[in-house]
């Protein structure tokens, strides 16, 4: 029988976050949602790392804080998690930057669509036939032309949900 302490619940939550993030990356086709799923998985991993230093009833590892001789939590994972958070934020910022550039060139953030375009462009650059699918036999359904970024932005203004 698993004891339902705060620690157990936190561990389960951390691993749950990683799993949810991983599923989100696999299931979602919208690039921004994939990014959010990635952020979620990263926070799960960071939470797990912090939890490894957790001790029941211990206080923050700061000199002169709390009573002398009181048990402290392990400071090392906290240092490590700072590094991990910074790395994660850096990678996510880079992802957003590339994402914006992709949206400006293709006017969409749909992963399937973008992937098809990429395959098509690779094939065109190499001078070979683009890979077809069962639904769209080769040469019968060419890809629609890339919409102009300005047009896309004007025709589909950003709507706030619930506003």
């Amino acid at each position, binding site marked *: 029988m698993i004891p339902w302490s705060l620690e157990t619940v936190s561990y389960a939550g951390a691993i749950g976050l990683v799993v949810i993030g991983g599923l989100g990356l696999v299931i979602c086709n919208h690039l921004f949602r994939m990014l959010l799923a990635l952020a979620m998985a990263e926070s799960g991993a960071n939470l797990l790392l912090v939890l*490894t230093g957790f001790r029941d009833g211990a206080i923050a590892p700061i000199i002169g804080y709390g009573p002398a001789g009181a048990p402290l939590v392990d400071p090392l994972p906290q240092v490590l998690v700072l*590094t*991990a958070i910074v790395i994660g934020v850096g*990678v996510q910022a880079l*992802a957003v930057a590339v994402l914006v550039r*992709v949206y400006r060139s293709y006017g969409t953030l749909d992963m399937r669509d973008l992937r098809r375009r990429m395959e098509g462009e690779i*094939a065109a650059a190499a001078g070979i036939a683009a890979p077809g699918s069962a639904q769209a036999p080769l040469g019968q359904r060419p890809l629609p032309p890339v919409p102009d970024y300005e047009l896309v932005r004007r025709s589909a203004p950003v709507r706030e949900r619930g506003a």
Partner: protein
Amino acid sequence: MTLELPVDLLFGLNLDLNLDLTRVMTANAIVLPVVLPLLAAFLMQPLAQVSRLLARLLGPLVLTLGAWIILNTWLEVGPAPFSVAIGGFAAPLGIVFYADQLALLFALAVQVFTLLFWPGLGVVAKAEAAADRQRAPRRDALALLLASAATGLALSGDLFNIFVFYELAAVASFGLVCADDSGRARIATLRYLFISAFGSVLALVGIAILYLQTGTLNLAQLAQVAPETLQGPIGLAAFALLLIGFGVKAELFPLNAWVPEVYATAPARVSALLAGLISKLAILVIVRLLILVFQQPEASQLLLVLGVLGVLTGEFSAWRAQDFPRLLAFSSIGQLGLVAIAFSIDGTTGLLAGTAVALHHLIVKSALFGLANRWSGGLDALAGAAKGAPRAAGLFVLFALSLIGVPPLWGFWIKLLIMVGLVQGGAPLDLLALGAILLATAVEAHYLFRVALRLYQPPVPDRALRLAPPARWDTGVAYLLGACLVVISVAITPTTEALRVLAQQTGDVLLYIDTVFPQPLADKE
């Protein structure tokens, strides 16, 4: 022996490159190939404002200096491994660099190969020169970051430090892949970024589990406590997570969907660096973990299974590929599966075979990607390319024969080593792997010969495609690497003996622990 690096010396070297070189000739100088490219990468942009020529020269100069320092240290200190405590903080608290022959060899390979495939050397057409001048400092800075991180991966003896270097290499490679500003490269970069970042999350979870079980992330200390704390399913789970996480860059089976897209869209030299160099360093990290921390047989079996899946999927996909870069990319997945299989063999045999096949792939695949720089079209368009560039085509055939494993060449001896190792292992899984390798070799021979045949066919007249011969620099590099391959194939006995000594040293866990902790830790407690 542990050589401590005084803080003032470290900072002194950082700030003043003209320091007395005799002092650099100590083992401590081994941190410089990591530190100097990092420093140069951040100085690149301001320097480009002052002098473009100096900024262009900075990268190759730093890499040459790094290669010289590593060679010098290797010759001065000799074959025994040594460790350097960074900043003078001793091992379990501070970070150590551990330099044995394997680490030094790969650190040297990083400098040499980054130099050979330096993105700014002799490729730029006159028409693109203006745009390239804008981009060059940024791209060079990223390449230097990649070199620094890769050297760090080879030398570091601390798991979290390795994780940080791994992330640094990842970010630098994202930038390099989409450096030439094409839409398809950006899409490939995004997909690569998502896969790679999720792999890092998994590796981080693995690291957290390791820390939870052992309370340390220093590899030497992990090696001491692993036999008691990391046996059983939890240790295996941690290894699986680390394997999949670091396996992203190593092109191992589950998370390698990025490989064909990135290599088809990135500049060929970046592909050469990623496929040749960075994948080997990721494998090196996995091997260090396997030897030092996860000694249970299940861990090796897991690596073996992923390797077999990689070999089969990679080679069959390469067989179906229609264009040259993606053919090379899939073939690279297959070859790295072979590396994983080799390292999963027990004992010195496995380490010897693994190191040999990793070095072989480093030489051959980098050279092939270099040749693919101008031959990036479909396979049909390659018809008649041998007429325009007979020497490049000849080199392709040489490398292809060695990849397949045709007897006098090095590739044959390596495959023989792996097969003998697998037969000696004798478990059903080993024999399955043996069958997979034989099948994959047949497939590999078929598609590589098909390309060779295309090269020597008469050109198709109605296509009228003028194939430019590979750039002079790339052909030169391919010549150099081809010469290396031939020399090694001729001097196969001394090479194998040298690698055997290296493998024995790598496999010696006690030596690693004793080098990092000169007196056993048990005495202190």
